[in-house]
């Protein structure tokens, strides 16, 4: 498989704190890459750096041989990067349909597409995530699960190549979480996506990911298949502390 995203020596400092330190990895087309690490490891900072919300102090990011290190978030969205948020961030004053319509209009440039045409296309994404019947409801009135699905529809509507998913399970009950994970996997198959998935629930990552990257203190500590990473001593130590063997 060809490389879709290449990250080399990515570094981010907040004053004296090094949040991300010389991080390098690559993502191949069609892969589902799990991104794990204990709390405060720098996972969300990495996603913010990759999507352009934060500027990297050092390092390079390449998307399909195109340098995007200094590109703005809107340019990265046009190049094919989309994300969902850990806590859903809908457009509260817009209906579900209009939220997705904007993503259709502002994501990848479509030829000969009017606002009405964008509305028709947006209904397909809402239908896909199961929100068609809620299309005329204001986003602020949707339930938490529906907001997660709306975010997914909004991200899909920008026609991404690489989708960053930031903790899809957070705030969902087990039944909703199962449906949400199935939905993400269905979107991957249906739209031919590559997924970069941050998740705290290890069971999900083990099932869904082809490869897992683990970080701690902003540095990569493991990169391999889910089984390799979960049995890696450094990863276990990062989660459980240095004395974990006494209790094993």
């Amino acid at each position, binding site marked *: 498989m060809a490389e879709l995203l290449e990250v080399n020596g990515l570094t981010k400092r907040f004053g004296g704190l090094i949040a991300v330190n010389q991080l390098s990895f690559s993502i191949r087309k069609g892969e589902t890459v799990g991104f794990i690490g204990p709390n405060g490891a720098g996972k969300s900072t990495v996603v913010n750096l990759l999507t352009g919300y934060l500027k990297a102090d050092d390092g390079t990011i390449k998307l399909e041989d195109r340098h995007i290190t200094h590109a*703005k978030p809107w340019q990265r969205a046009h190049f094919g990067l989309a994300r969902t948020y850990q806590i859903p961030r809908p457009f509260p004053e817009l209906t579900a349909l209009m939220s997705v319509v*904007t993503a259709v209009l*502002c994501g990848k440039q479509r030829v000969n597409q009017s606002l009405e045409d964008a509305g028709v296309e947006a209904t397909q994404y809402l239908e896909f995530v199961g929100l068609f019947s809620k299309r005329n409801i204001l986003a602020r009135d949707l339930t938490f699960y529906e907001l997660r699905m709306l975010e997914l529809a909004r991200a899909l509507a920008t026609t991404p190549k690489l989708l960053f998913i930031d903790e899809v399970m957070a705030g969902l009950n087990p039944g909703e979480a199962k449906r949400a994970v199935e939905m993400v996997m269905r979107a991957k198959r249906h739209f031919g996506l590559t997924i970069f998935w941050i998740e705290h629930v290890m069971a999900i990552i083990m099932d869904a990911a082809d490869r897992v990257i683990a970080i701690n203190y902003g540095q990569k500590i493991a990169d391999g298949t889910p089984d390799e990473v979960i049995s890696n001593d450094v990863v276990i130590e990062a989660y459980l502390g240095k004395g974990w063997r006494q209790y094993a």
Partner: protein
Amino acid sequence: MVDIEVKRDRVVLRYKGRKWDWTIEPRYWRNTIFWTCVLLVFPAISYFVSPGLMNTMVSANIYAAIAIPLSLMTVGTGRINFGPNFYVGIGGYTAALLSIHLGWGPLATLPFAVIFSVVAAVLFSPLVIVARGLYYVLLTLLLPLVFLEVTFIYTGIFKGDVGLFGVDLLVQFDNVKLNFLAAAYISAGIMLIYLWVVNKVLKSRYGLIMATVNDDEEVAHGIGVHISKVKIISFVCAAGMIGVMGWFLAHYLGTFAGITYLPMTYMLKILLVFMVGGRAQVFGCVTGGYFIAFLEMILIRTMGSFQPVAFPIILLILLFLLPRGEGLFGLYRKRHYREYMPTIHVRR
């Protein structure tokens, strides 16, 4: 080439791989036609019944015509500008100075009033990118006040204390009542054009994109909206439109004084029009403009010297009682709800 196609219910325009649809549905025109007729018939009736009302109507139209672009600016930048009267001052002084010193008429000064307002807006447009919240409020609040100080410091140019006199009038009939009638129609015309243009923009794809900036600009950025471009364009266009009202005031009254339009009192009146009518609701600006102008006139006639106290008290009570953020127009809209755009029904 521009390709225009007229269908039964819509006009479709295609240009360089882009496409725009305009829905033409006469059932949506009823209210528009009715209220436009009311606005156009009202000055003619006032001309015969009570000529003083024409002046109040001009004031109402001016308030509305400043508040309408302010709505566009608010939605497009996601911030409330507390100094819209700064651009009234720029447009007004440009028109007045050109008219007095070069002897130019209203039509000659109009483009310059717009250009100067736009240039001033471009110079201050970085504010909408770098400042937000209280900082933006303070910075925009300061602009007209600083300009007012400038008019006093350079009093030889601006005549800060008394104002500039001798500006060419918009229309000059022998009959004073006819002058007022013409001004009422011109101001109503400008206000209606603003209303139509801004409403069209806000209901188009560009309005939708502005709405996302207004709701959450970081998320909008992430889905591909060039937020700086959207914010600067809406800020500059709205400022140019507000500048035209400065031009109108200068040529309508034949004089322009910063002391009248740049202090807090005038700015607060505009912001009250904006809030009482309905925050960032274009039709609410007209409701608010007429409500404030007529309330002020009625209080002056009935309460005399007590008016300056009663006027803000009534408005404060209204701000508390009216639906939050929706204003007077919100009351109407709640009873007559209409979709943001016609719902797309998909047969299942």
